[in-house]
């Protein structure tokens, strides 16, 4: 057990060091910021899908809610950015509580149900009827608090916390319990696990991560429209990165993000339609030949994957 924790810690340290040091080697901080956003979101998806089996197509709903709650706390309540980001996380948890009946659905029903929920939040936030509150379709402008350095550091802290949480879950009884619930809720109940409670905790945790990440994103990008933060591609990227790397591990989403997002930046920028094509083909290959992601290559050889 202790050794497993050590492997997790190595991944943690490498990731955090990379994001701390890379901007001084290569000054496009934004590239690394986006990478961190996707990494944290991928880990959020990992907690939910990897450990409980719920595939959240509408994960971006929490991201957008966090972004908006953070932005509105700053513009309307004049709260400084960092506490505002925490409010963003809380707002997503509140949304998670409102949407918790979704957890009664399984498989594809949940996936599509969460998608519908996120679209609903988007249409409500961007509706002109709420213009006085959300600024409706006009979007958000946070130029007055724009500090890319500070928001970058905040994002590193968030990634560190998220990685820490995932390492904890991966190595704790809580994580085992979640996997047990995913495998067989009845047996899990018989084993004394409060199925509904534990599942809800994973759901809220995952919602909070997306909310906080959304908040930091809002601060960093500072001018955005509802379409920017409720873009379904954000969910899809996070999900594909997670699946590609391999769920239920700390390393999987990290690998998935670095490889695919790296790949995206290599060919995606100049020839995106070819990228989308290759992306699609990669997904088919993954599903047909490597359904448990890249880490299964290591697992098959009998290695422990943190």
């Amino acid at each position: 057990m202790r050794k497993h924790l050590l492997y997790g810690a190595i991944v943690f340290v490498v990731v955090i060091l990379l994001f701390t040091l890379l901007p001084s080697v290569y000054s496009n901080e934004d590239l690394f910021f986006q990478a961190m956003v996707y990494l944290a979101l991928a880990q959020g998806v990992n907690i939910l899908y990897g450990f409980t089996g719920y595939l959240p197509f509408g994960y971006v709903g929490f991201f957008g809610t966090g972004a908006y709650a953070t932005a509105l706390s700053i513009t309307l309540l004049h709260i400084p950015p960092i506490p505002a980001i925490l409010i963003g996380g809380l707002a997503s948890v509140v949304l998670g509580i409102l949407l918790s009946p979704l957890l009664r659905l399984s498989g594809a029903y949940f996936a599509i149900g969460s998608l519908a929920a996120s679209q609903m939040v988007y249409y409500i936030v961007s509706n002109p009827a709420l213009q006085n509150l959300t600024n409706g379709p006009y979007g958000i402008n946070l130029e007055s608090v724009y500090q890319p350095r500070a928001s970058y550091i905040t994002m590193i802290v968030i990634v560190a916390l998220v990685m820490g949480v995932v390492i904890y879950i991966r190595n704790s009884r809580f994580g085992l319990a979640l996997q047990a619930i995913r495998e067989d809720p009845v047996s899990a109940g018989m084993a004394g696990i409060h199925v509904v409670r534990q599942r809800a905790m994973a759901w809220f945790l995952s919602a909070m991560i997306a909310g906080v990440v959304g908040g930091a994103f809002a601060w960093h990008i500072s001018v955005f429209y509802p379409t920017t933060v409720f873009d379904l591609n954000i969910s899809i990227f996070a999900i594909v990165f997670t699946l590609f790397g391999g769920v239920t591990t700390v390393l999987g989403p990290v690998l998935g993000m670095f490889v695919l997002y790296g790949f995206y930046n290599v060919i995606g920028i100049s020839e995106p339609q070819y990228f989308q094509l290759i992306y699609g083909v990669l997904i088919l290959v993954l599903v047909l030949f490597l359904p448990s992601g890249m880490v299964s290559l290591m697992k098959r050889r009998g290695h422990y994957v943190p």
Partner: protein
Amino acid sequence: MLTYTIISGLLFGLFCSLMGIGLNLIFGVMRFVNLAHGDFLMLGAFGAYFAYTFWGLSPALALVVEIIVMIAIGALIYYAFVPRLLRSRDPEMLSLIFFFGISQIIQAIAVIAFSNNPRSIVWSALGSANYQVLGQGFQESWVVSALISAIVIALVYVYLYHTKIGYATRAVMGSQEEAASSGINVHRVSAIAMGIGLALASAAGTLSPFLLGSITPNMGSDITTTSFSIIIIGSLGNPLGTVLGGLIYGLSSMFMQSYVPSWANLVPYLLLFLILLFKPSGLLGKVVRHA
């Protein structure tokens, strides 16, 4: 205004039923959610567009050709990939991701081949007369589209209830194991169902320029979600329940447009969400879930 809204809702609803029915057939037979449904519909739409623009073919004719081609393509996709998917540990989830991959590929190829510019077919391609129904004027394209939708749906009914392979299809929908044990070739039935499912999507596609406005390579994703709401409202796995789902969807969105247009887009998602929460089996469905 009320009469107009109701009749438009019914006409639009018939089209919506056609839009969802293929997705539901595939779900019913294979328990797969075809996330590329909207993209096959988009291909159908572009097929009709090119047929009309280059050869002057009526969309109604394009529809017939596309149905035949798509049945073949669907069966091909089935035999190439699905047996392998079914052997995996979690076929339901993997199929979801698989069809997402297919959707990405289709969209990418469509952008490369067709470019991004929105296209549309002039409405007079389906007739330019103005029909009088209950003292209200409706453009012919809507009436004709609704009529074609109704005919195609009727054919689906005939297929399911009055042909031998249709009986087998319904048996597989009931239970794959029992169907297999009573000597039905489940793979063959499923492959045909896949073909018909995609064919129905492309059939709806040929009519979509008249009901959904201009067509683009990226139109598919929204359509998949909308179709999914339609079939859930009706009843998942019961293709004819889709007719009810389509009509309810069509009517409610037309009512929203008439009376509270600014919130019209919430309709499909709100309906989907409510039905999922309170009656996951759909309005016509029997309770299927226990735990």
